[in-house]
């Protein structure tokens, strides 16, 4: 078999975190009763007119500036005409001719090498409503709550060649956009959606193969599987002497296969034209500067700072800064208890473990930096030992409890009273003559057993260092 290389470009839709919709004052809030976050504008009532939400332009500009784009200072909206019931006007207001951001790039890191992925454009548009099939009445119902929620579409050049690169690119975009506060970028919930354009070609060829567009990719894992699958599917077709058809395909992650949605021949003519209801947007230099000035400290800069300022290892700083939420907790908690390394350990250790166990994102973290700082203080002061601390942390993670009052309430404070401990230790020695003999015979392990027995007798609250010391002394 010949050697093939994969060429991948991405279209990424990101739902912006504005409070109101792009062209009306309705809330963007997720989860309201159907058709309660609607008005004549976002339900396409006759005579209603769109009025642009300025915040959408600012978020789009912020993402563009953070991804090294040029800002198109005279951008405007176009209508994309197509009939579908979730599209109340039967046209979508989008940008084709003059998108807001052009010619950008991001640098991604994959397995130790750096790569530049170019961004062709970023444009603003409105989301559609949601169709719900009513099984009982065998009909379809429409919920327009999502209709008019602002989106940006980030269109990359075909600069990626593997699933790892695609995921690195998406993670870079996600982190950047999250740091900007422009979106929460959750793939599962659809606030970040990626369509993968993929083609293969013989290694070394400079001619692009025929590409397909893959939709319905709801997780990084699905994206990786779909890329692998589509690459192989196309190679098999070519190896068999066939031709890849330019088409849109839908990924079924349960079956781990894709199927054709529509071919290029069925592609609709969207008859784009400038929306006469929306005048062009003039973006002044001052406005661009203002957005630039508001730019937060991004991941890379924070990572550097955590290494140099707090002495956090590079790998740990990388994990913490992956999520702005976690990075913020790190900084605030460190400021409160002055033990950044211990805070970092809780975050990259138990926090990451619990997030994985509960299938959660760092953005879903509920505990406050204050309570994490209190927990660290309790361990540092020796009020609780490490096994109790782990137990308390699980409570902090689950319910954001106040560790100080919790420890007090549950009587979890460590026993540091030497005389109280001495009696228990003596009792353990008396009850375990065999282990005592083993220890004295040179078996160090036997000491561990005796420590364990003592801790058990103390209900886990004994200071382990003190137990050790007393055992050695009494033996």
């Amino acid at each position, binding site marked *: 078999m010949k050697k093939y290389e994969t060429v991948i470009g991405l279209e990424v839709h990101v739902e912006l975190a504005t409070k109101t919709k792009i062209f009306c004052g309705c809330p963007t809030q997720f989860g309201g009763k159907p058709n309660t976050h609607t008005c004549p504008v976002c339900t396409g009532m*006759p005579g209603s007119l769109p009025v642009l939400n300025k915040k959408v332009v600012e978020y789009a500009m912020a993402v563009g500036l953070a991804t090294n784009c040029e800002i198109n200072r005279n951008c405007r909206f176009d209508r994309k005409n197509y009939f579908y019931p979730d599209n109340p006007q039967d046209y979508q207001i989008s940008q084709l001719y003059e998108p807001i951001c052009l010619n950008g790039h991001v640098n991604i890191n994959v397995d130790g090498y750096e790569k530049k992925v170019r961004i062709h454009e970023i444009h603003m548009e409105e989301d559609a409503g949601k169709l719900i099939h009513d099984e009982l009445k065998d009909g379809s119902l429409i919920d327009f709550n999502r209709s008019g929620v602002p989106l940006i579409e980030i269109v990359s050049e075909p600069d990626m060649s593997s699933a790892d690169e695609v995921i690195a690119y998406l993670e870079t975009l996600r982190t950047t956009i999250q740091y900007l506060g422009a979106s929460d970028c959750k793939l599962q919930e659809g606030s970040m959606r990626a369509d993968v354009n993929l083609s293969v070609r013989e290694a070394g060829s400079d001619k692009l193969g025929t590409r397909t567009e893959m939709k319905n990719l709801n997780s990084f894992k699905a994206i990786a599987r779909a890329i692998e699958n589509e690459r192989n599917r196309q190679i098999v077709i070519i190896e068999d002497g066939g031709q890849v058809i330019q088409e849109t395909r839908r990924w079924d992650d349960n079956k781990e296969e894709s199927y054709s949605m529509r071919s290029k021949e069925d592609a609709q003519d969207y*008859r784009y034209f400038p929306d006469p*209801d929306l005048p062009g947007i003039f973006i002044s230099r001052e406005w661009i500067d203002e957005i630039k000035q508001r730019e937060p400290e991004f991941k890379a800069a924070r990572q550097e700072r955590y290494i140099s300022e707090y002495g956090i290892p590079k790998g740990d700083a990388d994990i913490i800064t992956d999520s702005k939420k976690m990075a913020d907790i790190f900084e605030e908690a460190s400021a409160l208890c002055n033990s950044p390394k211990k805070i970092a350990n809780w975050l990259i250790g138990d926090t990451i473990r619990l997030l994985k166990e509960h299938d959660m994102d760092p953005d879903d973290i509920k505990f406050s930096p204050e309570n994490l700082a209190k927990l660290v203080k309790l361990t540092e002061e020796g009020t609780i030992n490490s096994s109790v601390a782990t137990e308390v942390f699980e409570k902090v993670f689950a319910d954001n409890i106040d560790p100080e009052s919790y420890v007090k309430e549950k009587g979890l404070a460590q026993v540091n009273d030497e005389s109280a401990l001495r009696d228990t230790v003596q009792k353990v020695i008396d009850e375990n003559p065999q282990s005592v003999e083993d220890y004295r015979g040179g078996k160090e392990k036997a000491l561990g057993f005796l420590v364990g027995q003592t801790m058990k007798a103390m209900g886990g609250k004994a200071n382990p260092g003190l137990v050790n010391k007393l055992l050695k002394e009494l033996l």
Partner: protein
Amino acid sequence: MSLTDLTATELGKRIKEGKVTAVDAAKESLENIKEKDKGLNAFVTLADEAGVIKRAEEVQRQIEDGSLTGPLAGVPVALKDNLCTKGLRTTCASKILSNFVPPYSATAVENLEKAGAVIIGKTNMDEFAMGSTSETSFFGAVKNPHDAERVTGGSSGGSAAAVAAGEVAYALGTDTGGSIRQPSAYCGVTGIKPTYGTVSRNGLIAYASSLDQIGPIAKDVTDCAAILEAIASYDTKDSTSVKRDDTDFTSALGGDVKGLKIGIPNDYFGEGLDEEVGTAVLAAADTLKEMGAEVERFDLGLVHYAVPAYYIIASAEASSNLSRFDGVKYGYRAKDYEGLHQMYKRSRSEGFGEEVKRRIMLGTFALSSGYYDAYYMKALKTKALIKQAFDKAFEEYDVILGPVAPTVAPRLGESLIDPIKMYLGDIYTVSANLAGLPAISLPCGVNSRGLPIGLQLTGNCFNEKTIIKAAFAFERKYGESIKPGGEEA
């Protein structure tokens, strides 16, 4: 003298003086409509009578307690049926919206209500404002009060006829390519299309968004100025709305036209113009000259490109604007269909009339991939050139004077046979829409059959006051407007 012979501001004055009440005015208007509208078909929907009386009583109270003081307080009004009225059916004279009751009112309608207007009903029109005769309505053609065999013009034919026949003292129309001015001319009444952006389009069911403007149709220039003053507003619900601090249009009523520079485009007096119309319009120019205006002929240029550019731009926008009428959310849905696509096709095929379908197809074609540059882009460039030609003309002149339409009102049924000919009839009016200019249409004579002839005065953007002043001066000189029946007053 019957109340319905009064102009809107005269009626408003009498109500304010306590000589009549808003309730009397509303009742008389309703009576008149009952009596006359069977022959005219000017109305599509009348407001519920009890509701109208209740509203008139409320307005009367507010006039009496001094909270309503404007010149239109208590005066009944008719609204073109493409203006959304909360709770009152709004059809655009189309089957597809024949059951549509809007959940909100257009900003212009709200502005009128704040001024104390009593809404009597919704007037007939060409379906979706597409047409120049008011014959394409799903509810049947409107008849001209001057001659029931003739059309009223369009598309605001119902509004023009209702005013001309004295059913109401004034009405609102909309003008995309002449739809206020041309029926005003055919019916012998006065109408203004304001500068684009002066009156909010919020709640106006769009035909061609970049050209549509709402404006008054009334018995004289004074009324038009007062009505425009009431409906003009900067509206945050319309992104094309313009902030203006010069909408006190009634302040332009008066003064003389001495030194006013009036240009007459030679291009408007060529082939296709009816001789009697041309003579009446030039006579009006002479009248203004006698009054001290400086009148001059000049070459405007590009006139013959205006109609094709207009029909491409308007149809292109319409093809997209009218997509939302799909049978899904409101309006007419076909009874029998299988699946979504058939539902769309049948609802739209059955719901839209011929002229609307023609323009949707024309516009869809103009925007199609491969044709966009040749048609739509070229039309936009032509539009820009036409605007430039007017900019140049307004460096020389304050007002451009010309006919409103090449002929008087044609006979019913004559125009629809040849749509191209009908489209060419818009030659004098579409340019004001393409260039966003204000223009007024007012009576300047009648032909040998006693049919009204209109005079059009066009001003530069935001210069409504200039054309109002000139029109007011001419109107006073010319005398009373023409009464139904065809006798010259």
